[in-house]
């Protein structure tokens, strides 16, 4: 490799590096299928062993939509210990970048002109990888822009990827097919939405306008005339991603400011807009030393149905947990427990859910909450570890909980993790009706 550094075009190296990543992923697929071919019971047996780390390792190498389903299901069923699911949440599509000639072709086909003609400057190489595309930097009239371009064939591959994962998921999660479909539909519809950049643009503009009043938040401006179903042009935002930002040692005050902005952003979306940026991935947030938080990428937006909203958030009210009859009713309505469960199962699952709700609802039960408190996260970790090792949970073949809960759970899970990573203390604002009845 050293010899190559003499070549004037650094792109050559970059290209070969990307291909190497591709080869690695490909190799893992091969390895994984080979293992299965040699021993068809491989997955199931090792899953039933408590430390099925190999499988989890292998799983984390699966890319694309297949991964996303597994990731979400495992979080929802609390099947994977938190440490693993956390690794999953970081997973991204790792397609090799589009070559510049293909970028040019995409522009010509969809916007009728090559990028050189549309912008004053346009970077030939991608600056960042987005989840299903790549980001180029451009300038126009002295403004710095980010141009996101989608990989070809992503929309097509969603459905086929999911079909590949289905038999695998049935075995891995020991779940029946009908219940699996219920997850799959939700995930598939969201993934397909994510590939529609026109929709994303519309939602980005909409949500960023409505959330514009929240303190310490900033959003990019979007340019519909330079966007289409596979291309989005927006302002280039300056700021650091979580990891780099934390490396600059920001003060507690600044971290709290950002954490508060983050909490307020989600509070407003969930309780006021009732639609939410359902992908609290660290890559979607840019932080600045003056305590400002920039928000990009509205690919995954979940609209929360009113009916579900009422039931779901009733659970968070402290008094609900004391009232056994009401609790039973909500659990039934949300399908946490079913008529097909035996009395023993009902009791077991109720116990688990109450414990989970109590723990996850904790930030709501106080006026402010210190997310830097690692012991709280340790409790969550231990609980999910324990649940995932419970025989009855592992062997239960029904999916529990409404499909809408998938994205809401994921959102809160992501939000808590972000706040923990920020080590921030926030005032946990919540709607009046949640607050009053706690007293």
């Amino acid at each position, binding site marked *: 490799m050293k*010899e190559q550094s003499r*070549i004037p075009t650094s*792109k*050559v190296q970059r*290209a*070969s590096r990307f291909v190497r990543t591709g080869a690695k992923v490909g190799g893992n697929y091969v390895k994984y299928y080979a293992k299965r071919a040699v021993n068809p019971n491989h997955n199931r047996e090792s899953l039933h062993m408590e430390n099925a780390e190999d499988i989890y390792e292998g799983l984390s190498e699966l890319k694309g939509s297949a991964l996303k389903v597994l990731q979400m299901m495992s979080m929802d069923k609390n099947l994977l210990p938190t440490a693993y699911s956390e690794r999953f949440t970081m997973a991204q599509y790792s397609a090799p970048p*589009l*070559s510049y000639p293909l970028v040019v072709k995409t522009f010509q086909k969809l916007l009728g002109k090559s990028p*050189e003609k549309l912008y004053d400057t346009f970077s030939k190489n991608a600056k960042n990888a987005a989840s299903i595309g790549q980001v180029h930097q451009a300038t126009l009239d002295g403004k710095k822009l980010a141009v996101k371009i989608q990989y070809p064939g992503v929309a097509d591959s969603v459905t086929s990827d999911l079909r590949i994962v289905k038999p695998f998921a049935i075995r891995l999660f020991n779940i029946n097919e009908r219940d699996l479909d219920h997850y799959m539909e939700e995930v598939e519809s969201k993934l397909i939405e994510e590939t529609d950049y026109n929709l994303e643009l519309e939602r980005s503009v909409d949500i960023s306008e409505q959330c514009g009043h929240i303190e310490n938040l900033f959003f990019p401006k979007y340019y519909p005339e330079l966007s289409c179903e596979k291309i989005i042009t927006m302002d280039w935002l300056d700021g650091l991603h979580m990891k780099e930002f934390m490396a600059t040692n920001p003060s507690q005050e600044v971290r709290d400011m950002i954490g508060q902005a983050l909490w307020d952003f989600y509070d407003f979306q969930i309780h006021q807009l009732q639609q939410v940026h359902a992908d609290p991935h660290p890559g979607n947030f840019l932080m600045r030393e003056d305590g400002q938080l920039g928000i990009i990428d509205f690919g995954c937006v979940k609209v929360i149905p009113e009916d579900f909203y009422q039931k779901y958030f009733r659970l968070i009210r402290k008094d609900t947990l004391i009232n056994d009859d009401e609790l039973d009713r909500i659990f039934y309505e949300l399908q946490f427990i079913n008529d097909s469960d035996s009395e023993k199962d009902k009791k077991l699952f109720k116990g688990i859910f109450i414990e989970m709700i109590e723990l996850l609802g904790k930030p709501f039960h106080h006026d402010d909450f210190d997310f830097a408190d690692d012991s709280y996260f340790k409790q969550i970790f231990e609980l999910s570890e324990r649940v995932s090792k419970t025989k009855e949970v592992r062997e239960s073949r029904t999916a529990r909980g409404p499909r809408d809960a998938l994205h809401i759970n994921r959102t809160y899970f992501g939000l808590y993790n972000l706040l923990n990573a920020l080590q921030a203390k926030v005032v946990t604002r919540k709607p009046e009706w949640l607050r009053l009845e706690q007293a």
Partner: protein
Amino acid sequence: MENTASKKNTKAKADKTVKIKEAYIDYVLEHGKEPASVYKFMKMLKMKEGIFYDYYNSFSAIEKDIWFEFFEETISRITSESVYNEYTVREKLLAFYYTWIEILKDNRSFVTYSAHKIEKRGLAYKNTSFLSKFKTGFLDFANNLLAEGKETEEIVDRPLLGSRYDDGLWRQLLFVLKFWINDDSKGFERTDEAIEKAVNLSFDLMSRSALDAAFDFAKFLYQKRK
């Protein structure tokens, strides 16, 4: 005077070539096969059979010519883009494919008709004679790219194998062609993907890789043993 006359002549000649070519394409698309004879074909055009032979000696010569034009058109389009000169060899080949496929798209029916003759037997492609003129042009282009790539070290020259690279690229082109003909995805997106992946693979194979290191190592061990 003489000059204008000869210009007129060339123009008239070009007109007739175009006319014959278009009539031919029209005929095969309408009938799904080539005309029964040159005589019948020219009669349909209300021209003498002899005129045909001033331009072509057979129907297959027309087909060769049409394919060669696709090639020429591709080259002239990619080289007219100013960014082309900044491209690496890998990107130049990609640009060639994307533009070529765009041109083929405008003639998809004819391309499908013409290319269905290609048969794949094992690793070899048969019945590609209608592409002979196109192939000469493409190999020229490919060899220029390869020479450039070897100069920038994007491609390594290997004993024996190094002179067969162009052959590999030709095979790749036939693969892309076949793939596109069978592609039923929206906007032929799958073909775009196939092109990216195929070109990346071939360039990785042609660049310095683990293969060379392994070969080098094996050679070293072998020599040590002696």
